[in-house]
């Protein structure tokens, strides 16, 4: 077994443990490379099937190609899709692009709050109707108690301290100082009613592993990661367009990206350097404590 086989097997085991332990299980799908690999690993774990819904938080500022890709994949692979959105903040224009808030508050409103409201079913949410191929209101929203998330330890400081099974309090908060122990491959799978759990199958994967795996498995991936012919710009990390910058790179294929990463071109530039919210005071850690993914 090589390194990718090993990572794949560990992640598959985590998926199966989550599916065994949580009856109300969902997986976050941000359309990006990590959560697309996550989706592929789910199909590995369950022999081609994805036996739980995927949750996408639509901030309304996602790059439009992401939404088109999301719907196309969901229809093609027969996925159960749940979509959540902070419609109130959007309607009252309480966002950074509207000039009403800073980036951090905008992230909190459009992503963190929308995610928390969608997961605990306290906000309205939508599901993809495969017959009409449109989003319809979720007729029976129930809270999710286990949520699979594609966070990786090498992305950024606070993510390096995550547990594979990470409990969140009633208010989705993360108590970093008092986390449960994880021995060997035994995770915390017993929870007080009212708490919910974030499950992180990709914790030990690096950015390069993700691309090597996409290459090996021929996983279809959104083309925003590739430079368009004649340009030397591509996205390395995907988010909302007002706060996501591209990087200087002429990689046009998965092979190009793997070669580029192996060359060490980005080894001293943070992966999320194109994500403006990380740079504000407090940054990602403040967001994550309150329930950001």
């Amino acid at each position: 077994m090589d390194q990718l086989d090993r990572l794949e097997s560990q992640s598959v085991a985590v998926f199966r443990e989550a599916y065994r332990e949580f009856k109300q299980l969902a997986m976050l799908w941000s359309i990006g490379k990590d959560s697309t690999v996550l989706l592929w690993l789910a199909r590995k774990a369950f022999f081609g099937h994805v036996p739980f819904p995927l949750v996408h938080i639509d901030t309304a500022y996602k790059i439009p190609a992401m939404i088109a890709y999301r719907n196309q994949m969901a229809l093609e692979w027969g996925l159960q899709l749940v979509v959540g959105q902070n419609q109130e903040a959007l309607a009252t224009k309480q966002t950074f692009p509207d000039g009403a808030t800073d980036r951090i508050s905008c992230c909190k409103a459009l992503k963190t709050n929308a995610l928390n409201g969608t997961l605990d079913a306290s906000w309205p949410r939508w599901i993809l109707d495969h017959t009409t191929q449109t989003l319809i209101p979720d007729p029976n929203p129930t809270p999710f108690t286990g949520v699979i998330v594609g966070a990786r330890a090498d992305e950024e400081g606070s993510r390096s301290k995550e547990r594979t099974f990470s409990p969140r309090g009633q208010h989705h908060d993360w108590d970093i100082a008092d986390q449960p122990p994880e021995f060997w491959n035994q995770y915390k799978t017993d929870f007080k009613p009212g708490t919910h759990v974030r499950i992180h199958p990709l914790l030990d994967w690096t950015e390069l592993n993700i691309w090597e795996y996409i290459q090996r498995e021929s996983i279809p991936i959104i083309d925003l990661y590739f430079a368009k012919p004649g340009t030397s710009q591509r996205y390395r990390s995907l988010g909302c367009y007002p706060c996501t910058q591209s990087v200087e790179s002429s990689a046009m294929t998965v092979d190009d990206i793997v070669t580029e990463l192996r060359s060490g071109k980005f080894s001293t530039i943070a992966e999320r350097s194109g994500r403006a919210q990380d740079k504000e005071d407090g940054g990602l850690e403040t967001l994550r404590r309150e329930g950001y993914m």
Partner: protein
Amino acid sequence: MVERMNVVIVGHVDHGKSTFTGRLLADSGALPDGKLESVQAWCATHSRPFEYAFLLDALKEEQAQGVTIDSARCFFKSSKRHYIIIDAPGHIEFLKNMISGAARAEAAILLISAQEGIKENSKRHGLMLSLLGIKQVAVLINKMDLVGYDQSVFEAIKLEYAQFLQSIGVKPAAWVPISARQGDHLIGPSDAMPWYKGMDVLSVMDAFHKEKPLSHLPVRFPVQDVYKFTQHQDDRRIIAGTMVSGELHQGDEIVVYPSKKKSTIHRIEGFNVPSSTTVGPDRATGFTLNTQLFIKPGDVISRIGEVEPAVGSCFRANVFWLGKQPLRVGRRYKLKTGTCKVPMVVTHVKSVLNSAELTSTDSVNEVARHEVGEIVIETLKPIAVDLVADHPIMSRFVIVDEYDIAGGGLFIAKDDHPHLPPIELEMDVQSAIDPGLRHTRLGHRAGVVLVTGSGGVGHHLEQELFELGLFPMRLEGLSPFALPSVVTVANALLTAGLVVMVVTRPEYVGVIADALSPYDQLVTEDPTAQTIANWLA
């Protein structure tokens, strides 16, 4: 593809773990551009001297307190391989975090301050590494700059700590005198310590070897789940799990433990994998069988002819305890081993070792937080595991107290003679009727017959006693979990003047007899109705 290894850094608080790791990252060029400068600038604006440790202590909370709270992971590479460095906290309150970090490591680096010498957690962490099964350990004597790079200080600590490691069965891979702050012996030689002829730390790490897959051990496949996705038009019934050791092949005759049911592997299943007829260790996989057996998560699959796992419900084990509440004899917990999750009780604490001082105490009823104990575990149902001498992975378990993993350990032996604590009645009963009057009315005295045997024994006897005119009632107390209820019910029935037969295992006779001591008792393997009738006449 480049090899990868997890290495955990452990040691007493303030012996320089985070400084060491930060310096190693900086010197090996693993830091993002500007990270060093930005942390230095942060220190300048906050009027604090720069520390390499701040590079790691990425979280604000840690910078406020100046200690590592959790195990941070960071990545760096040498010319040989990629490393995931797990920086574990040294404070005793964070021992559970240290263990979470160390439990996924293949090798460990243990730091001891040359200035302070061996401290409580130097020993505690050493013992934890040994219990977690981490065989490769390098000991770094740090802060050599603060003792004038004096060789005799290094040698004295080495001598003392080597004795300790020997006593717990750890053989260190290397001893290196370093100064993390000054960068001595991290990467390359040091002019400050010409007397040291050994390898630098990076070379020691590169000399650690990868753990070999357990292909040479018997087949062990703990069943994680059984899938049938009929709603997705898929009729395969797939047994899913991760191979721990050995190899399975299409067509192999397999045995399921603890039930010992047998079947044959029909096909090895997978998604987007080249079809294969063999699967080996560490692979998450699944297969279909030729016959439909009732298999459930927690079962262990092996192959016919392989060494069998240890099947039973009573084991001796070493446990290290992290729970806020001590591990108590008689309290009910959940045991998790492999993919098996089962209720358990601790029936006996044989000895307790203080993990800092390594002093041993006998005859206690609990294992306190941060202590190591030898205990006897009784599970509600038989389980299939291996003993530590036979299998390093299949002998591991954790204990869940309410909602939290509160301890972990290793099975060391099967134990056929559980040592049960006294049983307390769950409820007492009082009667206004004199027992003598009941005797007169019923025609016989109250009495308890303890019958040893398995479930179902004694049905016939109960009928015979009834036909002889007695008032018998039969109860089964075959598991330690049932005993408190059985004894409580028996006590009520005996107060009512009945003949109570308790069918139980030989090892429980003593405690049941003690709990029902006010009543006449008969212990027998093969009683006849007439002897009992005569006895209670």
